[in-house]
């Protein structure tokens, strides 16, 4: 009797964690191999490869997000495929990492891309980087490698290059079934369709990226994207460095959001070591992170202004950004890569003498941002160019996995700073609100970012004020993690959720470092926004997610909305077909 009472009370207290664990135990039974809690509410569950699809199906239906999918090379033990499911938008900190082991020979695992779009890029990336085959992937082309990358020496060779690799053959056959795809409106059947290359070098982009846009008149029918022009292999580099040297490496992933990378890395290592950093360091990290968000949002506003032809806004925004850079120089000694966040705390203190200047410059920036909000609300041409453009509905944003301001402009209240508090963002340190907007269009993204800039100013003011009453200690000494220790942690970069996963092998260099940047997700959402829009709006729609191709360096299959058919075409084919005799 008492037992059943206890059981019923337990059922009432069921959290999402318990519910998911119970379901997985029921489903997997003997294949529920191992379970451990790596940090607060972050669980690792090991199972067998045949269960990845049912698990993915359940997790997505349970409103989970596939935060990342990655493969870790375990040497003689084979490959370890990890599915990182996040439930932190429902319950603070909750994460599940589902792991499966694959043999080293013929590593094959069913693809979960048909279940969720969020897995598509990650699986392609892992097929590129580690050679693990995800069977039945709907778009098995290369993501980072060039399409004509020679994979098998024995395969069909044309002009010395093996054009059809094992994986790409499927793409070739799909295309062959659909008949000849003519790019420049030469065939009568496709006469209405025109193909336009945007990139890799185009005035629209600061970085190199290749979009293929198919237009019918002025309307975009479908979009394809190729990444990989900036790939530098930062994750691999990090796996060859001492823990102490990695913060400075990962800051180089991105020139605009550098500190947030270092913070995410340091948070992850600190979680592995289970150390708490001093309060003062938390406040200093928050100040630098929020200044970085201000800097990023201002520079984005300028670029967005330039994309709709508003050069004056571009110049003004970049002028105001100079104030942030000057502050960085004063506080950290560097203008771009700050190198202030370090394992166990921060490297430099912010003294009392700096505070008046921080407040003075913040006042100026706040006034400018209010002026830009007025422009966004009142300027007729700006409104005409941004309103009802690039719609991303809440359901699409959730399905495709948008993060950051892009998701918040679709009225999805998702912010790592509140769902997964780090530095001084939790309510006991600072109080602030998550900004959302229900417009779902480019204009909403403008407004969300500008209002966020105001919130950033507020957070910096609070941090500066409360920092005065903390002790002078800014750093605790870290030590090396134990063997097998692993941790996953994330920060809210200016562009959205930045995810880090690190695993130790007991030496002074980490065994696995995995980085999932926010643009990696938002870029994958781009085709959903671009289809049906006009070509004139393509730049501002692409710009509205604040794409950082340097971070991502990673787009997509072609999907014909008119006929609902998938067509795949490779650059190598085109080059060969249209090469001059």
């Amino acid at each position, binding site marked *: 009797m008492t037992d059943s009472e206890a059981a019923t009370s337990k059922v009432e207290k069921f959290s999402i964690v318990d519910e998911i664990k119970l379901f997985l135990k029921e489903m997997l039974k003997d294949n529920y191999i191992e379970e451990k809690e790596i940090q607060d509410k972050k669980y690792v569950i090991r199972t067998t490869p045949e269960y990845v699809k049912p698990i993915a199906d359940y997790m997505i239906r349970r409103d989970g997000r596939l935060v990342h999918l990655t493969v870790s090379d375990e040497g003689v033990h084979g490959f370890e495929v990890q599915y990182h499911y996040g439930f932190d938008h429902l319950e603070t900190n909750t994460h599940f990492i589902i792991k499966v082991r694959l043999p080293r020979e013929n590593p094959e695992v069913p693809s979960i891309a048909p279940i969720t779009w969020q897995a598509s890029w990650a699986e392609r990336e892992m097929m590129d980087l580690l050679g693990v085959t995800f069977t039945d992937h709907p778009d098995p082309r290369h993501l980072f490698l060039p399409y004509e990358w020679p994979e098998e020496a024995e395969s069909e060779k044309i002009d010395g290059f093996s054009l059809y690799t094992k994986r790409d053959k499927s793409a070739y056959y799909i295309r062959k079934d659909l008949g000849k795809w003519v790019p*420049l409106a030469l065939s009568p059947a496709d006469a209405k369709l*025109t*193909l*336009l*290359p945007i990139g890799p070098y*185009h*005035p*629209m982009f600061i970085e190199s990226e290749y979009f293929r846009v198919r237009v019918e008149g*002025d309307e975009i029918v479908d979009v394809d994207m190729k990444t990989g022009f900036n790939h530098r292999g930062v994750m691999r580099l990090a796996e060859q460095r001492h823990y102490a040297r990695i913060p400075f490496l990962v800051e180089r992933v991105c020139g605009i959001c550098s500190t947030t990378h270092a913070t995410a890395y340091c948070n992850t290592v600190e979680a592995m070591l289970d150390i708490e950093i001093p309060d003062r360091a938390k406040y200093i990290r928050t100040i630098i992170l929020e200044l970085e968000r201000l800097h990023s949002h201002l520079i984005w506003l300028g670029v967005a*202004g*330039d*994309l*709709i*032809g*508003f*050069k*004056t*806004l571009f*110049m*003004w925004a970049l*002028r105001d950004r100079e104030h942030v850079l000057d502050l960085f120089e004063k506080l950290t000694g560097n203008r771009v890569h700050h190198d202030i966040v370090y394992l166990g705390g921060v490297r430099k203190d912010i003294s009392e003498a700096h505070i008046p200047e921080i407040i003075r410059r913040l006042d100026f920036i706040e006034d400018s941002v209010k002026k830009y909000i007025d422009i966004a609300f009142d*300027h007729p*041409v*700006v409104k*005409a*160019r941004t309103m009802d453009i690039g719609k991303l509905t809440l359901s699409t944003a959730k399905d495709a996995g948008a993060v950051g301001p892009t998701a918040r402009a679709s009225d999805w209240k998702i912010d790592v700073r509140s769902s997964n508090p780090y530095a001084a963002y939790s309510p006991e340190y600072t109080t602030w609100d998550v900004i959302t907007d229900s417009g779902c269009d480019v204009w909403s993204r403008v407004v969300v970012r500008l209002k966020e800039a105001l919130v950033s100013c507020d957070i910096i003011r609070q941090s500066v004020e409360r920092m005065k009453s903390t002790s002078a200690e800014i750093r605790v000494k870290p030590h090396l993690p134990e063997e097998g220790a692993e941790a996953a942690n994330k920060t809210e970069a200016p562009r959205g959720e930045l995810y880090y996963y690190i695993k130790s092998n007991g030496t002074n260099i980490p065994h696995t470092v995995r980085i999932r940047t926010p643009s990696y997700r938002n870029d994958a959402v781009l085709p959903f926004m671009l289809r049906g829009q*006009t*070509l*004139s*709006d*393509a*730049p501002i729609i692409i710009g509205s997610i604040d794409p950082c191709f340097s971070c991502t360096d990673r787009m997509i299959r072609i999907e014909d909305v008119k006929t609902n058919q998938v067509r795949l075409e490779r650059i190598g084919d085109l080059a060969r077909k249209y090469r001059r005799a």
Partner: protein
Amino acid sequence: MAVYLPIWQIIIICFALPAVGFFLGVLFQSLIRKLTARFQGRRGPWYIVPKSLRPVVGSTRILQPFWDIMKLMYKQTLIPSTAQRKIFISAPFAASTSLIIAIWFIPIIGISPFGPFEFSLIITLYLMLIVPLTIVASGAASSSPWGAIGSYREVILTLAYEIPFILGIFSTAMLTGILTPVYGGVPLIPGSLSLTDIVNFQASHSISFFGFKIPAFFILLNPFAAAAILMSLIGKLKIKPMDIPDAEVEVIAGAYTEYTGKLLGVYEIAKILLLFISLTLFIDMYLGGALVTVNYLGVPSFIWSGIVFGVEIVILILIISVVNAANARFRIDQAFTWYMKIPLILSLIGLVWPYIMVSLAGAGVSIGINIV
């Protein structure tokens, strides 16, 4: 009726005027650049030009647009092998040549070799229309998809701004014929289509505007048409809300995408000439052609004319620069809708405005304007 200069003077002016027009256009262009930079809060590089370079670039850099073109003239000219070669090469020259001829018909402070010709206004309008036509042709001939999109945008924009432009110009030209007899003035020509006549009419008449005696500027007599023309010129000159055909981030350079070197330089010359012609035409039509006929203070009248011309140009360029700096770029459908909404309605009001003035004066209603 037309009074022409002696033939040797006409020949000299025919050669000198385009050169003067180009030089002034360069000055206007650099003024627009300087003003836009100030509005945008740009600081620019702060350095002193070395002495050895001063004869070449000058110490003030006001000739920068000219040196930009000169640089292009030194560069290699590449022609895409897939381009329609004849059209591709001849289009920039057709644009520049038509504008050079147009300068002969437009009075600059009253000086013009062929201005007195009866239909010089119509000829000028047609010659100015050749420029968008060549841009469309060169974009289509360049065999680049971006050129094709630029051409398509140019066609739509030209259609949009050309209607209020033509309506506004002709409603203004009617003023010379309709107004004078009614307001007690001496009728010069019944509705002249000669630019020199239009300029002379404004210079020889004055109006009492609520008691103030001022020259008979058509901008006062028909402000609606003047506003419509100014809005159309923004499209003609590709000023900011209307710089859609060569929007950099959207279509790279539109019709000019495949142009390089000297051919692009010739197009740049055409752009400078078009800026000069558009502003001069506006001054001729609405601001009295900057023509002063009296030797005030013993200073020759043409010097006064030059000063007035300069002041009027600076005001116009100030307006253009403000519009350029304060706006984002329209989408092509939005631009077309805007032209169909505001300038077209203004020019239609301008078209009936002379008749309204005449009927009001006939009915004895004072609107505060009297031609003397």
